[in-house]
């Protein structure tokens, strides 16, 4: 029955998971490197990890359009949809490691653990993007949450960091309890835990009330991961307290992984979305409105980006509510745009923090005078966040709004447009401080380090490229969605 030590099916699964296995080996390598390297050269571990993750990224990109399949008895699915999100996760992980290199608050002697955790959490999110079994789903979500609890509170000296970790932990633990409770209903109703089996059950028996209740309880878990209002309470505090690279990572990678599982779960399980769509649409509307309105009064850059991130989740949900081919496609483009825009913005926050030691946007005064070019690049990221052409954020918003109108959610689209207008105000407020503030707090030119520069300029390139030459990316998204394995719609 078996040939050699490893059964055929497992070997096949492992081959399909080459990037994940690679990342896992990298994590072990880092743990060992941490033991060997002297404290002085510990920062090099970050480079090793970044290079390794770039390798995993290339492996994933190379396999992007390979035929999707279920592996390990339906525990995981590897298809281009999962790979797309894995790419987003890996890119943000590489950026995050580069950012950490110059982040002052990180102590040298803790770099080993820090890097190992980052690499492991990347693995967790990659598994999350492909999870197609409730057990695997829960396990990967917990994996990611547990590591992020630690990463958020990593700077122990900072009481804000500790406070953030505790808040994040308490709310996270509670929401995973609710998630498991909901998942238990799904298993109880269908008697199966893998998505294909659940799907088969639903085709045969139809959807019961209890099933929907279970799914909505699971939505609490997803909502926590992507900071959906009203499960967003942790986000501002966690974002503000966490070390800035972790904040950037949390806001991009963790959110994308959450979006991936959310879409996957609903698409793979539900035959149609009529039962839950109104709730999802309402959540989307509330999320963007709350995120944008609260962001208006924020002065801390990380906090402001947290609320703006919440608002962006609202927009992503809007694309998801549209559901069809076009809807998911718009979500992909939006997430891609959000990745580069947000990473660029955070790179600036870190560069300025390293110089001034402050995250307050009122301390950004005078930036345009001392380093005008950088100020302009920052400005580009800000307008991309706001969704103004010619930036990636604009394209994302356009597609999402289009998808919403396309599937009859005009009211949601109107709310979305209004929100964009509101959001312009607080993004412009940062620009105002940079350009017109009377108090010139920043008096010396900001010189981001090489790694930060790599992030800033590659992000800038991508932000402009996605908007100016969108066809490639639209095709990519289209093809990705077409290859989405196991969804009811079969696209």
């Amino acid at each position, binding site marked *: 029955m078996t040939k050699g030590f490893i059964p055929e099916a497992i070997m096949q699964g492992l081959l399909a998971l080459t990037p994940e296995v690679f990342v896992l080996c990298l994590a072990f390598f880092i743990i060992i490197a941490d033991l060997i390297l002297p404290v002085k050269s510990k920062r090099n571990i970050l480079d090793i990890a970044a290079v390794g993750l770039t390798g995993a990224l290339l492996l994933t990109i190379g396999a992007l359009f390979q035929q999707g399949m279920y592996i390990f*008895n339906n525990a995981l699915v590897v298809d281009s949809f999962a790979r797309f999100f894995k790419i987003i996760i890996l890119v943000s992980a590489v950026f995050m490691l580069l950012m950490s290199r110059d982040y002052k608050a990180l102590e040298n002697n803790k770099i080993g653990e820090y890097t190992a955790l980052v690499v*492991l959490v990347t693995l967790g999110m990659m598994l999350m993007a492909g999870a197609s079994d409730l057990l695997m789903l829960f396990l990967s979500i917990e994996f990611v949450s547990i590591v992020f609890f*630690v990463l958020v509170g990593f700077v122990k000296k900072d009481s804000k960091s500790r406070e953030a970790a505790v808040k994040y932990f308490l709310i996270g633990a509670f929401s995973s309890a609710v998630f498991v409770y909901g998942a238990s209903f799904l298993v109880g109703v269908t008697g199966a835990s893998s998505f294909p089996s659940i799907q088969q059950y639903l085709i045969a028996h139809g959807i019961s009330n209890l099933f929907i209740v279970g799914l909505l309880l699971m939505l609490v878990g997803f909502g926590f991961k992507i900071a959906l209002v009203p499960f967003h309470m942790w986000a501002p505090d966690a974002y503000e307290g966490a070390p800035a690279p972790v904040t950037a990572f949390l806001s991009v990678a963790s959110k994308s992984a959450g979006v991936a599982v959310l879409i996957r779960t609903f698409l793979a399980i539900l035959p149609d979305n009529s039962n839950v769509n109104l709730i999802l649409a309402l959540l989307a509307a509330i999320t963007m409105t709350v995120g944008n309105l609260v962001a208006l009064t924020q002065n801390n850059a990380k906090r402001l980006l947290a609320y703006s991130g919440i608002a962006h989740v609202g927009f992503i949900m809007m694309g998801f509510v549209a559901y069809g081919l076009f809807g998911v496609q718009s979500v992909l483009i939006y997430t891609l745009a959000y990745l580069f825009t947000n990473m660029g913005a955070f790179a600036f926050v870190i560069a300025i923090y390293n110089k001034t030691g402050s995250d307050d946007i009122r301390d950004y005064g005078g930036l345009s005078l001392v380093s005008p070019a950088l100020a302009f690049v920052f400005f580009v990221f800000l307008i991309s966040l706001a969704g103004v052409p010619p930036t990636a954020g604009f394209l994302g918003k356009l597609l999402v709004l289009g998808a919403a109108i396309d599937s009859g959610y005009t009211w949601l689209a109107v709310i979305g447009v209004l929100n964009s207008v509101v959001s312009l105000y607080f993004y412009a407020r940062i620009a105002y401080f940079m350009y017109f503030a009377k108090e010139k707090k920043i008096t010396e030119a900001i010189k981001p380090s090489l790694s930060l520069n790599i992030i800033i300029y590659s992000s800038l390139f991508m932000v402009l490229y996605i908007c100016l030459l969108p066809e490639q990316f639209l095709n990519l998204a289209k093809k990705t969605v077409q290859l989405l394995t196991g969804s009811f719609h079969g696209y």
Partner: protein
Amino acid sequence: MDFSFISDSIVTYGVFLLFAVVAVASAFLVVSVRSVMHSALFLAVFLLSVAAFFFIFDADFLGIVQILLYVGGVIVLILFAVMLTARVSSSLLQQTNEQKYSALIVCALLFIMLSYSILISGLQGFENTLLPGGTAKSVGWLLMTVYVLPFEVASIVLLAALIGAMAIVGKKDE
């Protein structure tokens, strides 16, 4: 006297009901008792009655694992933490805030919604198949075949948690 109505199933049902009452009561006490220590102890009672459910339904391996891990491991760790935090163990903390009534309403609504949808859904049990070689063997077999990936990932999660714990508490020499 006719005792023929007493069969295995009736006895099982009676024992199940008994433990169900104990489980619900102790779960309620976990959240309502004022001392943290007592909460933890009632949690132990709750977990033990869950283990009893496993025994009642012929999953003796799961029941034993439940006791070994949750009562012998988790609860002991919780008690350990309670004992080390002097303030919590010595004084009675206030457990509610001014939002308790609104929370009560939300909980009641949630409870009604859940019980309504559970009651109308007509959940049916699954076939009780006695596993060859007992639950322990079957669980082991499943873990190494069908659920091999979640099983291995769980070990990576534990590794990550271990590193995380070290990062939080560890003091490394410069």
